[in-house]
């Protein structure tokens, strides 16, 4: 199955491609609207800060193409910063309007011992979902981020991690939308299974 990884020049996406290949997909890194329209799954990756990433994404001219997919409920998966961009607005270095595919804000983590929230933390699922199938009982995944989705326990938050009693949104969902705040491509066997499960979410 083809997976189009949106190429907008933000961060190193080679590792996302390797992980998708290991999970049995045919990833293609692309900025071609046609590829992004027709792929059964599109991944929006992202590393770095929200403002330059949104600017780079807008410069590709692909935002309307992504919006069309979302309106048609065709699967779009945001990873790390790519997940954050799915929301209305990010308050990283000011106020950055984002894609607005999901309602909510991205704000700096508060009441946590150290920022970034970096390392392995355990996902707690709030509901049943095809993504959660065949995961081990303690699904640890690898996080590296300083900002997170707020409020943290709204209906779109499928799974969260507990960081010193603060819930940190880990997986978010909407119609045709999945977002992962952590890095599935760096999350060992659990990350692999989550990527394998994406095909069950079509």
């Amino acid at each position, binding site marked *: 199955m083809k997976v189009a990884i949106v190429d907008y020049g933000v961060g*190193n996406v*080679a*590792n996302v491609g*390797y*992980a998708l290949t*290991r999970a049995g997909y045919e990833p293609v890194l692309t900025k071609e609207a046609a590829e992004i329209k027709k792929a059964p799954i599109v991944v929006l990756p992202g*590393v*770095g*800060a929200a403002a330059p990433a949104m600017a780079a994404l807008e410069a590709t001219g692909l935002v309307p193409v992504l919006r069309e997919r979302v309106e048609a409920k065709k699967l779009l998966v945001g990873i790390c910063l790519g997940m954050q961009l799915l929301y209305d607005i990010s308050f990283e270095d000011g106020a950055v309007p984002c894609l607005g595919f999901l309602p909510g804000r991205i704000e700096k983590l508060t009441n946590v011992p*150290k*920022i*970034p*929230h*970096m*390392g*392995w*933390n*355990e996902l707690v699922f709030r509901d049943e979902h095809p993504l959660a199938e065949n995961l081990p009982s*303690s699904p*640890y995944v*690898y996080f*590296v*981020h300083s900002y997170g989705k707020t409020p943290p326990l709204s209906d779109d938050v499928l799974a969260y*991690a*507990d*960081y*010193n009693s603060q819930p940190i949104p880990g997986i978010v969902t909407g119609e045709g939308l999945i977002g992962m705040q952590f*890095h599935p*491509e*760096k*999350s*060992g*066997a659990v*990350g*692999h299974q989550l990527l394998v499960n994406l095909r069950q979410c079509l």
Partner: protein
Amino acid sequence: MLAKRIVPCLDIRNGRVVKGQQFKNIKDVADPVELGKRYSDEGADELVFYDITASYEGRSIFLDVVRAVAETITIPFTVGGGVGSLEDFDALLKAGADKVSVNSAAVQRPALIREAAEVYGSQCVVLSIDAKRYGDSWHVYVKGGREDTGLDAIAWAKQGEALGAGEICINAMDQDGETEGFAIELCRRLTKELHIPVIASGGAGKAEDFVDVFTQAQVDAALAASIFHFRRVAIRDIKRLLKSKGIPVRL
């Protein structure tokens, strides 16, 4: 709960993993991709690859190693050794590394930390410090532990944090390769003073050493090499022991 991390370290020379004691008596032990994969399968939370070649040919072999590791390994990995410029950061991150550690070059030109953090983000800049006890304090050593800079290790770590380093890896030279336990006092001083994660390195000889450094020094991660290379203790056994002591780990 955020898990404490166990981090095997692999020293790479001309594309092979090697291991020495107190930076000397270096022996060839394994293929980096195979050993990295084995550690990952055995429960390592992260890997570190240090290039100890420092020659031009060695650097290009090392980049090949980094690419091969990125294709195969499914956990985060840091690379370091001879990183001196933003170009080095760029080449290593493009080859697939998640984090890059700087050591001597940052002592020589601290602005390198800030520049790398601005371009690539703090999360991928690790300041690695080789420290050796000097009376009641610790001095920063550079050039693979051969040169005493006279700098205070704690002060340098704090400066590194202020410049934008995302993590500090503290390698206690008195402990390196000696398997008599981590440098608890040094690590405790650092975790008190810093707000970024601290990785303890040097001295691990048995599973209890990991319990001690996590409970007594509150470090975020513990790094070791020979204890894993020579299979003295399995990573999972260390993690089971840590869990039994109430320390959160990924099992």
